[in-house]
């Protein structure tokens, strides 16, 4: 079961720079490992992560097999308005997950 862990401050003052942390459970199979029988294990990774703040994209990452399992990403943004952060992970084998978090800006 894929599950996301999001860390966004619940409250912030307008203009504050806030840190956003996002973790998605995923094996991030590199495609370079072999089974004991010698067969290559097919690649299965998250390739793209996007964060939108009230609909506008504020951060995007292209991920490669060199990102560790259960990809964790932290980044910053300026708290401008109260509203919602939407997170989206897209990957191999049709992987697509979303999560969201809200913030109150005073």
């Amino acid at each position, binding site marked *: 079961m894929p599950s996301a862990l999001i860390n966004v401050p619940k409250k912030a003052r307008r203009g504050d720079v*806030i840190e956003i942390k996002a973790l998605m459970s995923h094996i991030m199979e590199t495609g*370079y*490992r*072999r089974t004991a029988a010698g067969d290559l294990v097919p690649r299965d990774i998250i390739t793209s992560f996007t964060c939108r703040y009230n609909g506008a994209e504020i951060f995007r990452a292209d991920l490669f097999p*060199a990102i560790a399992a259960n990809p964790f*990403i932290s980044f910053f943004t300026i708290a401008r308005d109260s509203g919602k952060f939407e997170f989206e992970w897209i990957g191999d084998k049709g992987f697509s997950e979303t999560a969201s978090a809200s913030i109150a800006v005073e």
Partner: protein
Amino acid sequence: MQQPPSSSRRQFLGLAGGVAVLGVVPVVTVRPAEATPAMLASAIQNVTGGAAVQTGKVKLDIPPLVENGNTVPMTVSVTSPMTENDYVKAIYVFNEKNPQPNIGNFHLGPQAGRAQIATRIRLADSQKVTAIAQLSDGSFWSTSVDVVVTLAACTEEVL
């Protein structure tokens, strides 16, 4: 690691002798694939489009000695005022010796407030990790850090 059961020292030496006679040294690759400095250079070329990359402005925080290459915490920060006219557009992270030269591309903008990202990466060997920042004026800045890895990632067997 294990020799096939049929191979023996004698067969091996015979084979090695035969190869020596032919004057061909077989290249034994332990890993099926490994990024080469040329692959790293071309991956960087893809990002910069041939523009000059200057050293500085970028700070790459990564432990110099890593016990387990499967998950290595890494933070990249760039010195930038992050205003509408002067901000970091993207941060690209590369490695030298994983099977692929790319680690991640991170796209930000003036709304970030602070040009800093953190993630956890895999390192298949002791190697150099390079971070390149693309600024809004089109210039590229980079830094590299050498990391020693005792347990490699990526290529172990799945049981």
